[in-house]
């Protein structure tokens, strides 16, 4: 993917600006996010990388406004407006959506109806187009149920098809490579490029260097803190050399307090 560099200190402008402002969250007495501030660039692909438990998924769930992730300090802003009181469905109507690490199963709900759930002016043609974009044969899949007869990888691709049909402005994708074979992963990467080409902001949550390489900007998380940000190559190298294995998974304070650096 073409990695554009953004000038240091420059703030994103334009439609679909997502800003995280000094966000902190505690769950069960444990700090999960601590003073996180990020500006996401509209139309760019971002990766939040870090070991398990670093707070990446918590941040994604908070941006989406899921139940259990609404009690936080700081703010999440879309185009300068706070999302604090905005429910999930309204956030989705404003263009934000989330792809789960393990997509839900829906007994009896057909793939076709699932894909059209978020699409405006849905049609069979739209279903067909969305399935083809994730490499699934519409004839084989459109009339199947989104249930346990589909593999995890198939459900992941079908979820992505539903996201593509929705034409969102901001897509959060939690562990897009989870439970996916190589071929399916390449289809998912194609879809990420497709979303970017349509002007969507993509935020990948990952601890995989392969997924990281799809991004243009990287944000390194550890123990609920954003500890560094910058180019994919630099953050990727650091993550590979210093974070695998992670020294901090026992919950101790970060041993070396890395400064957050600008790109």
């Amino acid at each position, binding site marked *: 993917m073409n990695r554009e560099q953004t000038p240091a200190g420059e703030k994103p402008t334009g439609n679909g600006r997502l800003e995280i402002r000094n966000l902190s969250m505690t769950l069960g007495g444990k700090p999960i996010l601590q003073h996180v501030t990020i500006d996401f660039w509209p139309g760019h692909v971002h990766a939040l990388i870090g070991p398990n438990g670093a707070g990446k998924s918590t941040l994604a769930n908070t941006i*989406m406004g899921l139940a259990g992730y609404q009690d936080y300090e700081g703010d999440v802003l879309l185009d300068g407006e706070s999302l604090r009181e905005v429910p999930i*469905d309204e956030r989705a109507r404003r263009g934000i959506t989330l792809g789960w690490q393990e997509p839900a199963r829906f007994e009896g*709900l057909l793939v076709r109806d699932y894909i059209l759930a978020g699409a405006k002016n849905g049609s069979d043609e739209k279903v067909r187009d969305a399935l083809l974009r994730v490499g699934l044969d519409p004839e084989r899949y459109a009339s199947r149920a989104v249930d346990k007869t589909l593999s995890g990888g198939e459900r992941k691709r079908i979820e992505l098809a539903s996201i593509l049909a929705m034409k969102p402005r901001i897509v959060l994708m939690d562990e897009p490579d989870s439970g996916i074979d190589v071929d399916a992963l390449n289809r998912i990467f194609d879809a990420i490029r497709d979303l970017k080409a349509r002007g969507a902001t993509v935020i990948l949550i990952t601890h995989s260097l392969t997924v990281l390489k799809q991004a243009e900007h990287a944000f390194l998380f550890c123990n609920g803190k954003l500890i560094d940000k910058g180019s994919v190559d630099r953050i990727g190298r650091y993550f590979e050399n210093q974070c695998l294995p992670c020294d901090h998974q026992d919950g101790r304070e970060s041993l070396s307090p890395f400064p957050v650096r600008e790109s």
Partner: protein
Amino acid sequence: MSENSTIRALFDSAGLHEPGTDTARVVVHGNRVIGSRLVRGLDVDARETADGIEADISVRVGARIETPIHMCFGMLPETGKQHIVLRVRMGKGAAASILAHCVFPNALDITHSMDAEIEVGDGADYSYFERHVHGREGGVLVLPKARVRVGENARFKTEFELIKGRVGMIDVDYETYVGPGGVLEMVARISGRGNDRIRIGETGILDGEGSRGVLKSHIALRDRAKADVHNRLVANAAYARGHVDCKEIVQDEASASAIPIVEVNHPKAHVTHEASIGSVDSKQLETLMARGLTEDDAVERIIRGLLS
């Protein structure tokens, strides 16, 4: 009202079209048979009784009836009683399915009961799809009871579904014995609201070697509706396989209980079960809301899927 107008009124209430002339059919209003048509291989002997009908339906040995036989049981008045006694005999190697619409669009106090004895001969294939259309007030007491024998390598499938109106009260009581290599599938999909009461009691006895059975009850409840599901699957022979699936979504002040009973009496048999009762799954709900559906629309779709 003429018989033709009664048939039309019943069909209109259920949103049905008049079937083609190649479709066998029997239409019963109250205790009168007001329409019937037979096809080759099918014999129907229906007699009126004081409060319903008694019917013998048989499909001859080897006969295969491609188009579902349409039966319509119903009553247009608000009150009354309709008791159906049904004896079905599927000859060896025969195949047929019955689509039965039970239509009570104006019911306030109607009892609709059925006592059925069904014999599915060796190698035969019989499906019974029961679709209910009730009024907005419920007002129907539905008591379907059936004893079924499924022969060697035969198949029996039944589906019970309320497609329009309110339940009222339903008490399903089915018991099926399955022979060697036979297959049983019993499915109930019902949505209850108001003060509806639903009781499902389905029993499958897998007596034959290699027989298979699935009992599936999917129920959605809201308001103050109640449901009790007692599904029992017994495996008595080698390589008998079965599964019991009870799923109930409960909203508002509704309540539900599910008791899947599995019994295995042969070391080479295997029966599994799953039961879940609860509100709408939060992950499903949030997934659909994250695509922009309102909470109500998302719940509606999840329930529609469960009942489809």
